[in-house]
């Protein structure tokens, strides 16, 4: 249960960070970390397929797309600072939500837990990733490599200008 709570807290923290980060790149990376924690939660709840797909699509693919898009934005556009005032209210809103969640969410989770029967018994992260979806991992590796090449190909020209 501690592990569970830790994951929930981390997911919320990363999500807040993603919204509040000053740099778009940081936001993209934080969003990927949200996906990673969410997929760990899926695994923990006994839904390895959902976990694997979340990891593949959101953490792997979307991040590379975001980073690719961020790398295309010209540096001049970053010189105009945005108004950050609204963001200071965000932790407050999150705190109110957390307190409300403390009272109401456990019952919701109990309800969710009764739906577990369908996904149960599909094994651990290991089996799901290595035995069922091994070729995807190769795709993920390729995706990460491609992401690095995209950054290497697009960034030097932007900084040069």
């Amino acid at each position, binding site marked *: 249960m501690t592990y569970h709570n830790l994951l929930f807290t981390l997911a919320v923290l990363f999500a807040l960070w993603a919204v509040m980060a000053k740099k778009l790149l940081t936001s993209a990376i934080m969003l990927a970390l949200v996906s990673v924690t969410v997929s760990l939660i899926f695994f923990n709840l006994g839904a390895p397929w959902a976990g694997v797909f979340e990891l593949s699509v959101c953490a792997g693919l979307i991040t590379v797309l975001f980073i690719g898009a961020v790398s295309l934005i010209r540096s001049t556009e970053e010189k105009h600072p945005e108004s950050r005032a609204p963001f200071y209210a965000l932790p407050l809103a999150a705190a109110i939500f957390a307190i409300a969640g403390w009272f109401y969410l456990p019952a919701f989770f109990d309800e969710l837990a009764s739906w577990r029967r369908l996904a149960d018994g599909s094994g651990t992260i290991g089996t799901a990733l290595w035995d069922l979806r091994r070729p995807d991992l190769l795709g993920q590796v*390729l995706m990460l*490599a*491609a992401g690095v*090449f995209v950054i*290497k190909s697009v960034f030097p020209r932007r900084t040069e200008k």
Partner: protein
Amino acid sequence: MDKGLLAYLLIPLLSAVIIPFAARNRPRLADILANVTLLAGLVNIAWMVLRPSVVADGFADIPGDMLFPLLLVGAIYLVALCVTFFSAWFMEEGQPNRAAYYSLILASVSAMTGVVTTTDFFTLYVFIEVLAVTSFALITTDDSRGGIEGALKYFFLTFPASALIIAGISILLIVLGDLQFETLRIFMASDVPPGPAVFAAALIMLGFLIKAGVVPFHAWTPDAYQGAYAPVSAHLAGIVTKISGVYAIVKLGTLLRFFDGRASALSEMVMFLGLLSIAVGALAALRQKDFKRMLAFSSISQVGYIVLAAGLGTPLAVIGAVFHLFNHATFKTVLFLNSASVEKSAGTTDMEKLGGLEHSMPWTSWTSVIALLSTAGVPPLSGFWSKLLIILALWEAGLRGYAGLALLFSIVTLAYFMVMQRKIFFGRKSQAAESAPEVSAPLLAPAVLMSAVIVALGLLFPYFYTYVKMVAERIIL
């Protein structure tokens, strides 16, 4: 995923990772590594498939499920090798991201190999996305306005397509409980009402139609091809969009058993869009003033033939589709590489400003003639046979109207290419052509090699037919 073909995926990936480190101080090493990797793969495939003993046995030594992937992997390596070899001499010295360019090309080769060897929908999706990311970055290699515009159009049209594909895949997972290609094939062969599975497949099909640039989803194609860095256009038009879109359509068509009419509405829709592409692509190509843009519309039109045949789905049509897919890779690569040569030599691809280049660029001119005659389906070149198979398949299936129109637009293809050839290469020398020397021999080599492949495939068609027929039988059974 086919383990026997895994090396064709892993080795380019490994080279792609090594290149940035190895070429840090010696940029030329990037050219060499990329070319050697692809050449080695191609030689390996040629040894496996074209050994005299294997050919004499009628390709009986090759395991049945490797036939189709091997053919496509061969096409991928052949086109990519031509593109990297051409780029090595085309690219200006001291370009900052030379290593990253080759890494991206090799990563896209890996991804395409993954696409053609996988047997699972989700893995297919992952590799298609890698391909989309690498293509997007490759289009921006030329960071002129056109390059960025092309890349953004590609981005905005192909990523909604990915969303459709993933939605279709998730419905498929609910319906079938599994994402293996085989499961869908068995499901379609059974007596269970196929409704939900066909709906899911239709969403996936729609996504791939967008990615293939089929009319009416073709808006990104001309801009991406025209705006992209010249050798990248050849790579994209020659093989990338064919693998990321058209291959998947052919595959899905056979999995859905279009030939026995289980998904007849979808099959008819795909055929109609195929014919629409042929018509719109050809008519639009007639009106183009830019060499590369005309080739892009011609590409849309030729993709239409493959999609039309895939929608019909009979064995003969699938043979035609597979063969035309391969042929399209050869002749479109020649034409796009030649457009790059013209651009380098004369400084423009505007057909109004060009003319009479035949005198100063004879090799470029005559390889173009071979490629365009093959595209238009003039015997005895390879394009003639594949179009003949497609039109025969349509006729045999009782679709006389479709067959007639396909034939008619084949003639329109010849017409617009004749106009192109006359404006660019024949006729009186224009001002731009006066100072346009023939490009160097290394730049001509890929086009000459591909032209030789076109002629050889046309003349040695009976041998090749045995192979393609076995491929099609394997896909359908």
